[in-house]
């Protein structure tokens, strides 16, 4: 780690405290002029650093740039060795993760971007990913389960994200089956999970869990077609919270659930967060929308419904809507 990286991590770890050049130099075991040079370098890279005579340096509270150094201090002890790769701009973090996975990236490798130019959802839909306002994160996993048991990954990931949001912001969020996360009636998180399977033994080569979270209002206005659908966790950056902090917690919580998938205890939590259970919904299949009632979640994360003919059945794929009822 370079002096600049070490300095950034120290500043991120101590955001509330001023650290003098002298203290920084002695803890990092470098000269004071090396600290001064590193501060200058960070400022040039766009970090907003307050420097006050007699007190020292600290990151401004509005400073909120995604970085490995900013995430690392908040990772749980078991995740400290994970490889964190942070890009300023990338086509899509899932695409990048897939490329790295094919080249042999280890389980738990994290790819993060400040901005995605081709952020995407399922079936080639796009995911609006403007800079400085979201968390765009992909995890490479190599789970040791058969493909047919791994369907719980998507429900597991959504519970992990809800837990992380609750833990660092106190905000309760809801899940729309399968794995869209809402605050009120606005979608604030989208999850795209992609796997590559070896058909010979039915085992995953790897799985990429891509998470896109709208943290605060972007500088540019939302595209018109998203105005009534998409929301953000906050209007503006809260003083004591950074996107790095939340990203670290998402990594911690999602990995904890996904490492122990067959322990289905998270499904109870999934049900309490569900915004569809007990509700009238519409189900899209055979190219049309059918009315149904959402009853429960199965042990595999499937949505149990009462269909238009009064029969009970479990959905394991397809699209549902609460909105389309109106």
């Amino acid at each position, binding site marked *: 780690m370079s002096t600049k990286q070490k300095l950034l991590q120290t500043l991120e770890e101590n955001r509330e405290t001023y650290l003098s050049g002298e203290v920084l130099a002695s803890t990092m075991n470098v000269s004071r002029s090396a600290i001064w040079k590193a501060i200058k370098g960070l400022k040039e890279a766009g970090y907003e650093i307050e420097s006050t005579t007699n007190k020292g340096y600290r990151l401004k509270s509005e400073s909120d740039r995604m970085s490995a150094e900013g995430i690392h201090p908040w990772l749980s002890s078991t995740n400290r060795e994970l490889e964190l790769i942070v890009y300023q701009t990338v086509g899509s973090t899932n695409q990048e993760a897939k490329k790295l996975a094919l080249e042999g990236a280890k389980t738990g490798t994290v790819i993060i971007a400040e901005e995605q130019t081709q952020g995407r959802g399922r079936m*080639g839909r796009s995911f609006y990913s403007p800079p400085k306002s979201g968390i765009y994160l992909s995890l490479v996993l190599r789970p040791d389960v058969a493909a047919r048991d791994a369907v*719980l990954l998507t429900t597991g990931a959504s519970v992990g994200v809800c837990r992380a949001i609750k833990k660092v912001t106190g905000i309760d969020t809801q899940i729309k089956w399968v794995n869209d996360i809402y605050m009120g009636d606005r979608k604030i998180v989208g999850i795209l999970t*992609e796997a*590559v399977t*070896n058909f010979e033994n*039915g085992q995953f080569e790897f799985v990429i869990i891509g998470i896109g979270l709208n943290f605060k209002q972007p500088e540019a206005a939302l595209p018109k077609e998203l105005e009534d659908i998409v929301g953000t966790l906050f209007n503006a950056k809260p003083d004591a919270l950074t996107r790095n902090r939340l990203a670290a917690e998402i990594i911690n919580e999602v990995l904890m659930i996904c490492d122990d998938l067959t322990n289905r205890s998270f499904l109870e939590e999934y049900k309490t967060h569900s915004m569809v259970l007990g509700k009238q919904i519409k189900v899209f299949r055979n190219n049309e929308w059918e009315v149904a009632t959402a009853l429960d979640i199965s042990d595999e994360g499937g949505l149990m419904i009462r269909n238009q003919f009064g029969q009970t059945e479990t959905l394991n794929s397809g699209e549902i809507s609460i909105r389309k009822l109106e």
Partner: protein
Amino acid sequence: MELNIETIQALAKIMSAEKLTSLALDQGNLKIEIKREIGAAQPAGITYQEPPIAATAPLPHYTQPVAAEAIEIAETAHWKEIKSPMVGVFYQSSQPGNPAYVTKGQHFSEGDTLCIIEAMKLMNEITAETPGTIMEVCVGNGQVVEFGQVLYRIVED
């Protein structure tokens, strides 16, 4: 097909000529289901010119020489089946409107994506283990497949 008295009459003629026992037509997504049950009880009130086929009478297919069947088996004996590793929806392409990853007769290389199976919003790419050629695509785009269901029949290089 427009349903009027002429088409119904035409269909009835086909039914009687082919000795069909039922014919279902679903114009919504153009579904046609035709059945010929051997020895099935004929609906009352309808008399046929010809006697109903006896249950023991073989259909033309089964009267083909044995040799022809044997050749067919020999040709497909080295075909390999690619089966679905999970219950889910079969997709032939990465997104609607995109060309299929592979089609009948197409050659593919090791590591190529053949299709996607989606379950619980998990998009699962099935990749080729060895280079080969697609001999048969066994399921339709958007169809729900079972665990172990055959998706493709292939011949390895």
